[in-house]
């Protein structure tokens, strides 16, 4: 449905997006993840035809954004980073304007607007001036605007930014409901968001794609590793040496001192070593005061990928 091929965007000397390629299949919901300044908004602005690319192509439903922009634009609903709102209009006035702008037939406008407002929870606010709405509600109007015309593709740039936790959950639910019959790209720098809604993640950093996989597989890769946080009493050198002899332990790090003669340790292994650690340390006369397993989250993957990318440079 969406094909991004060797896309590059330069702002003068700055290379914001450097030769990225990825495709999104029809009906898929893809998370576009990256830290600040990674090039997410730039890429989205190019896909939607707001900015021209320096090199490379974007195709939506087979239409090239450069040669057939109108066909592409008809198929896309776009929520930019800053919701494009006319604050001197009421919600209804604004959505009617957007409907006409997108060429929705006059007879269909009223019904479609009512459906959209119901979906994003704006019905009670429809007569309010956009200027008087809270930030969260303005964000909803921005989302509503993207839905006008019932586009097959939705490009959402940080759709939940600035919302309170309750609203975030609500908007995520809305996006998930939308995903059933649409192709969606959603950008974010918050991982739990992407893992909560998306089937697949594309991680971008410094304008290049750092990783790309399904959300579950990305976590699986990492879940093969086990991470234990322990507080152990006794001689630090001896403890590290003892644990290192255990089969499966890949990494041990002695962290902060917690109480007299006790330190915190972080142990990473590729299989369950808890039992072995217990017996070996018991034999060495070093009691475990506390033990806490922690699974690596998408958050860790993200940080890993992103910092690796920077270190490689």
């Amino acid at each position, binding site marked *: 449905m969406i094909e991004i091929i060797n896309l590059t965007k330069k702002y003068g000397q700055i290379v914001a997006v450097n030769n990225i390629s990825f495709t999104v299949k029809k009906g898929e919901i893809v998370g576009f993840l990256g830290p600040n300044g990674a090039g997410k908004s730039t890429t989205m*602005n190019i896909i939607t035809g707001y900015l*021209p690319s320096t090199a490379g192509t974007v195709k939506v439903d087979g239409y090239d954004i450069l040669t057939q922009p*109108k066909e592409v634009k008809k198929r896309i609903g776009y929520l930019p980073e800053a919701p*494009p709102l*006319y604050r*001197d*209009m009421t919600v209804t006035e604004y959505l009617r304007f957007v409907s006409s702008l997108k*060429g929705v037939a006059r007879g269909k406008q009223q019904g479609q607007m009512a459906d959209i407002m119901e979906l994003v929870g704006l019905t009670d606010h429809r007569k309010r001036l956009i200027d008087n709405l809270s930030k969260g509600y303005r964000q909803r109007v921005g989302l509503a605007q993207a839905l006008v015309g019932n586009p097959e593709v939705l490009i959402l740039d940080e759709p939940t930014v600035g919302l309170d936790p309750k609203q975030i959950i609500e908007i995520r639910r809305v996006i998930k409901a939308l995903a059933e019959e649409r192709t969606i790209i959603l950008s974010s720098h918050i991982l739990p968001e992407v893992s909560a809604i998306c089937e697949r993640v594309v991680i971008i950093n410094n304008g290049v794609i750092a990783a790309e996989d399904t959300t579950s597989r990305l976590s699986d890769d990492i879940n093969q590793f086990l991470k234990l946080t322990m507080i152990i009493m006794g001689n630090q050198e001896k403890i590290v040496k003892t644990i290192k002899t255990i089969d499966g332990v890949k990494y041990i790090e002695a962290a902060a001192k917690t109480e007299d003669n006790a330190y915190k340790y972080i142990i990473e292994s590729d299989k369950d070593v808890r039992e072995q650690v217990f017996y070996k340390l018991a034999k060495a006369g070093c009691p475990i005061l506390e033990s806490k397993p922690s699974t690596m989250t998408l958050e860790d993957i993200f940080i890993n990928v992103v910092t690796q990318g920077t270190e490689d440079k």
Partner: protein
Amino acid sequence: MWTIAKREIGSYFKSPIAYVLIGLFILLISIFFWPRLQASRGDFITILGDMGFFLIFIVPILTMRALAEDRKNGTEVLLMTSPTSLYKIVVGKFIGAYTVFLVITGISFIYPLIIVIMGGVFTIQLTGGYIGFLLLGAAFIAIGILASAVTENQIISAIISFVALLVMWVADTLATTVGGIVGVILEWISLISRYQVFTKGILGLAEVVYLLSFTIVILFLTVRIIERRRWVQG
């Protein structure tokens, strides 16, 4: 196109801009009109000449926000990513501003009416003069729209169009003093020399064509400037 024009008009009348401009215009005309009426020289056609000059102040305020505001508050993204073409967007903005201008012009009609009531006649010259005024307004507003496309700052946009209109107003006089190639160019952009033909009461076809094409060329240029800016900067 009409969608955008409609929104513009609504927006003008929601903000104080339209009312301030109407007030300002009536005030200016009154200042010039009453002394002459008192002197019972009720030839409104000369006032029409002055009205052309007032436009230099009115139009920049009218058009300063047209495209600049969209760039500033991000609504440009909405317009540019909609299936509506850039031409229609620019022409829509033009029609919006022009409609407010028509309202202002309509209100100025009160004065010729007063003359008629006081026993004068609405002359054929005056009709021609008004046609000229409407065309001059179109050309001026096109300049204003162009100025609003080059910056996202409304004040700067207003200053640019004010200076441009002022230069065009004095171009005729400048042309004769400067002479040479610059003189020819100045002569060529002199809107006022065309407008004066109308205020003399002549309905010159050449002038009609000139002012209309001037408007179209400037709007076309506006589209090109926006396109170019997108390619160059982003």
